[in-house]
Structures are given as structure tokens and as C-alpha cells.
């Protein structure tokens, strides 16, 4: 009989969460959460940390409608884990963020600069958000993004709300 496999990816609409089965430990030590559950309870474009390693973080972003422009001082990487997302990139005329800063910063209004291009990304697609540039997201529906970045002024920490505690 030929092998047939079904690969299971979660989504906002359908996910099943695992968990920590404690033998002799505290479940908080594993900071166990689920990206889709976090996105379900997030505001559009809120940057909720689901992982942290010293200054580095992974943020879950619920992409819905159009985001503000953001400028990043270092490379960031946006992985779409559900839905479809358009990413616009802009090369600003003037630096929008201190190059030694960490994490991206929001920009008021439309920054001056040269359009670099855009990416139409679907589930599983990973996009470079280059250092020193600006970007904004747009989703006609709701998409979920996992962002590889550094803790910044807009990173939201709510471990007690998103993680398994007992």
C-alpha cells in the first residue's frame, strides 16, 4: 500500500494545542504557548513576544488591514504562518531609526523615500525586512506572522496570559 501522509499546519481557524505534562517541574519554565491562540487574542499589528532569548525575541503579529510604516535598524524576518500578506518595502530618504537601536519603530504618516518593491507572501513564506529600510504590511483578511527580531519599544510581553501556568 503506497504511503500517504497529511501534513498538519495550524491556522487561526483550526489548531490543536499540545502542552506540558509535568512530572517534577513547573510548567512556567517552558513558557508554552501557541502562535494561533496568541494571534486570536491580539489586536491588529500588536507585537506579542512568544519567545525571548536575552535581547532577541520572536513576535507573533496578527496582520489585519494595513499596518503603519515601521523602520528597522537591523534585519528582521517575517514568516507567514497563516493567511496572505503583502509586504511593501521603502528605502527612506533620511534614516528613520538609529542604526544602533534594537527592534523596529513605528513611523507617523508616509515616510519619504524610494519604493523598493513588494512581496505577496502566503503561508510558509519568509521575507527579509532589510536593515535601515522601512516596511508595512497589508492583509485583506487576517494573517499571522512570526517575526524574528530584537526586543524593541513596541514589543508586548504578556507571558502570564499566553503561557501554560499549571
Amino acid at each position, binding site marked *: 500500500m503506497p504511503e500517504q501522509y497529511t501534513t498538519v499546519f495550524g491556522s487561526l481557524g483550526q489548531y490543536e494545542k499540545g502542552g506540558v505534562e509535568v512530572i517534577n517541574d513547573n510548567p512556567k519554565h517552558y*513558557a508554552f504557548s501557541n502562535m494561533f491562540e496568541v494571534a486570536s487574542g491580539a489586536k491588529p499589528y500588536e507585537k506579542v513576544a512568544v519567545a525571548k532569548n536575552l535581547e532577541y525575541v520572536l513576535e507573533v503579529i496578527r496582520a489585519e488591514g494595513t499596518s503603519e510604516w515601521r523602520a528597522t535598524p537591523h534585519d528582521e524576518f517575517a514568516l507567514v504562518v497563516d493567511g496572505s500578506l503583502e*509586504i511593501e518595502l521603502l528605502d527612506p530618504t533620511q534614516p528613520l531609526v538609529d542604526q544602533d537601536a534594537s527592534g523596529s519603530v513605528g513611523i507617523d504618516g508616509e515616510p519619504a523615500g524610494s519604493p523598493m*518593491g513588494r512581496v505577496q507572501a502566503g503561508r510558509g513564506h519568509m521575507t527579509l525586512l532589510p536593515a535601515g529600510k522601512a516596511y508595512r504590511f497589508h492583509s485583506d483578511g487576517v494573517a499571522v506572522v512570526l517575526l524574528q527580531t530584537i526586543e524593541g519599544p513596541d514589543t508586548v510581553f504578556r507571558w502570564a496570559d499566553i503561557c501554560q501556568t499549571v
Partner: protein
Amino acid sequence: MTMTETAPNASGYKDFSVGGFTFSRDEYFVTVTWPTGSHQMDIVQWLRCVQRDVAWEFFYGIINFDEVIGTMNHYGNVDMFAGRFNEAYRRAEVDYNENFDHDELLGCFKAMLSDWTNEGYDPFAAPMETGSAYGTSQGDNDKAVTRKRVVAERMVSVPGDEPIRSDESGFPINRAFADVHQDEPVITAEPGYEDQVCSFSLYAYLSRSDVTWNPSVVSACKESLYCPTTEEFILPVIHGNDRVEWFVQLSDEIQWDVEDRDTGAKRARVVMKAGDVAAMPADIRHQGYAPKRSMLLVWENGSPRIPEMIANGEAPVRPVDF
């Protein structure tokens, strides 16, 4: 201190020795000896462990081959031990530890892997995708055991960095990921920005992985490294952490046994399903079980400051406090 090797034994395999350790294999087993004891392991388990230790250059922290034998990376030099993280061995004072120059132990393992891996057997492959490791010496599989580990400088697909995978480049879609969409993102770059507007399908890339349990770097935000890997069957090593490590389950399911790093006492089981995120604290060891090939994003902090922080007790044991 230098590695030595003998002429082939009755099964056709060389014996190797480095420092106080000697290694010999027969048709089914490896036998390891050291000044205070000896140990045997199934040769399949041994080759799968040595293969990861070689490919990862001893990785982060401790690589336990089983409950007795393993290595501990000090980043420049490495310990090989027997019973060091086994309470019974330590209590009986028959545990043994020896420090080696990184290249010396790596050289011994590479020579062993080349000599002991038979034609048709691939230690990186899932059991259902490879031939047998057992029996007398028959040829080699150097092409498989010397695979280069992917380490992207910035991101896979960026011009000048690691390329995406395709049939043409020798990476067919794995049988367990035949249903994974292969569509790539639509990129529209303005003139002059073609090299900076970059995107690729990570899921399609992973669906074409030809190895299991082998985290490889696909993107780097300074020292923050995305090391996704495809997992099937059992993680051959029991990884003892020396720093906090994070897992993001991208597809399917993996169940992890988590034990105390130093004693092996059971601490937890962590069941991860698609979308789940979990940390592995810095004082545990873990081994994963994947019944169906799955995509796991291993997230590491590759900071060179961490070994010093570990030595000074400054690196956090737990990922976050709340």
C-alpha cells in the same frame, strides 16, 4: 595526544583510540572502553549520534549518545565522558571525563564515521529511507556522511547566500511532505533593489530536506539564528542544554521527554503540535519523538558571549520569569 587506528578487525572495521577512549565495532555493536569501564551500544544508534556530533561540531552544550556516553562542548575544546551525567556511575565513582582539542576529537569521529558507515546506509536518514548499518564492512557512504550543514549568513535565497532547494539541485520533495505547496512568494522589485527584496518559501524548502534531526541556519538576525529542521522517528542524541533554546512547531507533532540535565531524573513531557512554542530551560536534557516527518523551528542564540556568561552564572536558566 593523537588518534590512532588499527588494521581492520575480523568484521572489516578499524578500531580507533583517542586519549583514554577506544572504540571498536562489530556487525551489530560499538564497544567503547575507558580506564574505568566499558560500554556497548547498537551501532545504528552510535552512528546516528556521531553523525550529528560531527555535523554540528559538537553543537551547543551536551550531546548524550545515551545515558552513559557523550560529549560536552566548550567551544574550542570538548569533553568526552562516560557516566558523567549518570547518577549511578558518579556515585560509584566509575565515571570518566577527558578533555580534547576540538579538532582532535572531531577528526577521530570523522574517520570513524567514514570507516564504519556501510554503503547504502545514511545516518541522517529516517529508518524507512535508508539501508542497513549492520553486518561486515561493505564499502562506504562518504557522500552522505560528509554533507555540508547549511549555514545562511543572512537568509536563504538572498543573492550570494544559501540557495533554495529544487529537483534540479538534488533535493526532491520528501515522501512525507508530498502535500506541501511548492508555490514561492511573488516578488516585485523596483530597478536597483532586486538584491534587497528577498523572500522564499520556508515550508517548500523544508519539504525538500534530505536529513532528519539536523538544525541548519536559514536566517540570522545578528546572533539570533533560525535553525529549522525536519524530524522523523527519534532524535538520536539526548541534548543537554547549556543555554535556553526555543522550539516552534511549524507542522505536525513532536513529543519531548525532558529530564534533569545532570541526573537524568524525569521532569516533564512536552507535547508540541503545529503552532506551539516552547522553551527548553538551560538545565535540562531532552529527546524528541516524531511519528510523522514534521517541521520544527529550532531557535538559538549563537552569541559568543554566552559561554562566558555561563561560566559566570549570568546566563538565565529559565527563558522568562512571570
